[in-house]
């Protein structure tokens, strides 16, 4: 094996790729070759480091120098200074990775990583996802070997049960129980499916696992196949994730070639293979029965349960369906034992959870934390707080099925049951932070627009009910809300939750219910005072000029496309609200902050 004195790890996840990391890699390889160092220094294309905000990211080992926001032009300097002369290029380092006296902090000491515990993401940003040997070097396929050679099928299920692992896709059903149910029925054919149709807006952990560590998913599927007695797996992955699809294809080919998928794995007589199926852009296909219908080549509509997939799933055969992040935990549980996994987390939610931090937060990116970490720790310690000194208003979790968590619950330990208790849910782990500039009625409307759009139309409560709710919200945000609207929303929500066919419909009213619970005053302001407190809903806004601040420069009047602003130069101008179209051009142009929104 070749020995390299130094390794340059560069993120090739979607985030950093779109920030130009492929060109940076090319430049690194060029410069290293020009310096004659190609036998001493290796460039490794890795998956996501999580800190997407600072991409493209590159870490040089053995020093662990964490370079952020690199440009192609910076590469030559890093090579000539750091790699040739051994002098770290201090001004290109991620600022928070350097101590005050100029020493490099290790990854674990950086604020963003300090409170994290990477289990599902352990290999992301560490190994080259397109090279099976790197995965194997990090104990890859060891768990499969252990399961096949040292454990019975019941042992495997037992370990997963004891670990307390619950589904990371949303509902949090115990994974071991799912496997146990699917092992029970006698059937010559069973299936293992992986749900990689990550559709919750704001969640991208599955994408990062698939892009950064695809083999961990394949290995876990094979273990699941062994446990329930299946020989065939399917990964249903979104076509919107081209890099993930490409790396999965490479990983499957490499695993087949190495004999880790296919016939007679490890000489044990166990056969297991995996095929990919691409989603075609239907959110409802993230629902388990709809996903199976889609793999069967039909319109991805959900089916009533029972029969549950463990009895009658894909092609009518017993099937288990696990989410990507769930599977990414499995191999570690087999290797380290259920006690190790259960030692992390809270009483009923074990292990870690990956959250995708997004929205109004300084460190957007992926974080993996032990269950039970508080929202405050995630947002302020890891996420670095809210940009521009704004005030935290709410964090939205669970996507269109979830709800908003207001500031009063910042200190609640995050786990499945606590989130449900406060009217939200874990969901797949999207966490969108909102500040005082976000209107909660508008956010609720945004989510309902989503569900109305994505409703498959099979059952009337979801098809018609959510549309009626959206119409009411639309009226409210346009200043036409009436007394009784809130009650109508609540009644519709209750009925839809009780009667919709699948998870999508049953949870669709949640964003409305949770915003009503915590931000009822905003709804009331819209309906009774015809006012949008956050200043978002255009129909309810009116612009005015503060005569104290206005210097009469006439810039706003010249920028107004509607000719609604008039006045004498050097004395305060006024806005004619009858002509105003509320475009905000005056506000954007005023240099004195004299335009006020009401």
């Amino acid at each position, binding site marked *: 094996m070749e020995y390299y004195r130094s390794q340059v790890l560069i993120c090739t996840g979607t985030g950093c790729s779109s920030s130009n990391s492929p060109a940076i890699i090319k430049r690194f390889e060029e410069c290293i070759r020009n310096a004659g160092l190609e036998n001493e220094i290796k460039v490794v294309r890795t998956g996501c480091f999580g800190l997407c905000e600072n991409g493209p990211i590159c870490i040089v080992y053995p020093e662990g120098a964490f370079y952020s926001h690199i440009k192609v032009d910076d590469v030559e300097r890093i090579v000539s200074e750091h790699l040739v002369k051994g002098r770290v290029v201090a001004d290109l380092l991620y600022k928070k990775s350097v101590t005050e006296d100029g020493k490099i902090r290790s990854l674990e000491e950086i604020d963003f990583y300090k409170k994290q515990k990477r289990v599902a993401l352990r290999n992301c940003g560490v190994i080259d996802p397109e090279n099976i040997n790197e995965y194997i070097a990090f104990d890859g396929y060891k768990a499969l070997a252990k399961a096949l050679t040292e454990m019975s099928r019941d042992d495997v299920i037992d370990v997963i049960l004891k670990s307390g692992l619950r589904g990371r896709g949303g509902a949090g059903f115990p994974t071991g129980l799912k496997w146990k149910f699917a092992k029970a029925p006698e059937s010559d054919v069973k299936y293992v499916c992986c749900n990689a149709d990550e559709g919750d*807006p704001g969640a*991208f952990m599955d994408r990062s696992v698939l892009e950064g560590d695809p083999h961990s998913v394949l290995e876990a599927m094979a273990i699941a196949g062994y446990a329930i007695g299946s020989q065939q797996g399917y990964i249903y992955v979104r*076509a919107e994730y081209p890099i993930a699809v490409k790396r999965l294809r490479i990983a499957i080919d490499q695993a087949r070639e190495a004999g880790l998928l296919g016939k007679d794995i490890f000489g044990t007589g166990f056969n297991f293979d995996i095929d990919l199926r691409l989603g075609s852009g*239907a959110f409802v296909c993230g629902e388990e029965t709809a996903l199976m219908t889609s*793999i069967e*080549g039909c319109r991805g509509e959900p089916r009533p349960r029972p029969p549950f997939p463990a009895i009658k799933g894909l092609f009518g055969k017993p099937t288990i369906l696990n989410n990507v992040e769930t599977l990414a935990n499995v191999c570690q549980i087999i290797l380290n034992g259920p006690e190790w996994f259960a030692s992390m987390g809270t009483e009923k939610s074990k292990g870690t959870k990956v959250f995708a931090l997004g*929205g109004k937060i300084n460190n957007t990116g*992926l974080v993996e934390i032990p269950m039970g970490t508080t929202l405050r720790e995630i947002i302020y310690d890891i996420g670095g707080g809210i940009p521009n000194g704004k005030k935290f208003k709410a964090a939205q979790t669970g996507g269109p099925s979830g709800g908003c968590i207001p500031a009063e619950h910042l200190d609640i330990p995050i786990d499945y049951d606590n989130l449900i208790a406060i009217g939200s849910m874990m969901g797949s782990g999207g966490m969108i932070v909102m500040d005082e500039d976000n209107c909660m009625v508008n956010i609720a409307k945004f989510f309902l627009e989503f569900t109305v759009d*994505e409703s498959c139309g099979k059952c009337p409560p979801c098809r018609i009910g959510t549309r009626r709710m959206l119409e009411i919200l639309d009226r409210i945000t346009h200043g036409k809300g009436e007394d009784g609207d809130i009650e109508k929303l609540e009644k519709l929500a209750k009925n839809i939750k009780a009667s919709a066919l699948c998870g999508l419909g049953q949870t669709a009213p949640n964003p409305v219910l949770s915003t009503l619970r915590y931000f009822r005053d905003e709804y009331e302001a819209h309906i009774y005072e015809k006012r949008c407190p956050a200043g978002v809903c255009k129909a309810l806004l009116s612009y005015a000029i503060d005569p104290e601040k206005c210097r009469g420069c006439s810039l706003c009047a010249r920028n107004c496309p509607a000719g609604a602003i008039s006045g004498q130069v050097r004395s305060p101008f006024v806005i004619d609200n009858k002509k105003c179209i509320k475009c905000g051009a005056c506000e954007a142009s005023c240099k004195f902050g004299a335009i006020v929104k009401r």
Partner: protein
Amino acid sequence: MAVGNGNRKEQFEQLDGVIAQWKGVEGGLLPIMQHAQEILGCVDEEVQHYISAATGIPVSTIYGVATFYSQFTLKPRGKYTMGICLGTACYVRGSQQVLDELEKRLGIGVGETTADGMFTLNATRCIGCCGLAPAMMVNDEVYGRLVPGDVPGIIEKYRARG
């Protein structure tokens, strides 16, 4: 994709290969249609009938699938499909304003194609680039941290590419 009649025959031959590979495979209809769209640019009535005749799957089923999934299109798309993300993270960071600018600059609405066949404008669901919100995909390329001012440059880049 602007597809001329001249090479359409070759495209159908290519499709024959795909159908041969997937025919008889359980759940093979979706992969066939995905390839068909890639090769022919859309799954219009002609393509649906062609797949139906070759596989024996009723054309009503194929039409049902084609209209269910948002990725399938019954009309040819432009050479470049611009999909601006309206996922939550992008939305709260102002992707609507970027979309407004795209509509203004391209002179088309969401779901429409420019007269020269270059651009189709789409509003997509989350593309998983929330770390770079607001984000947009042009075919398979991702653009992040967008502001409305970036729009003309991006359009120009693809126009120049032709």
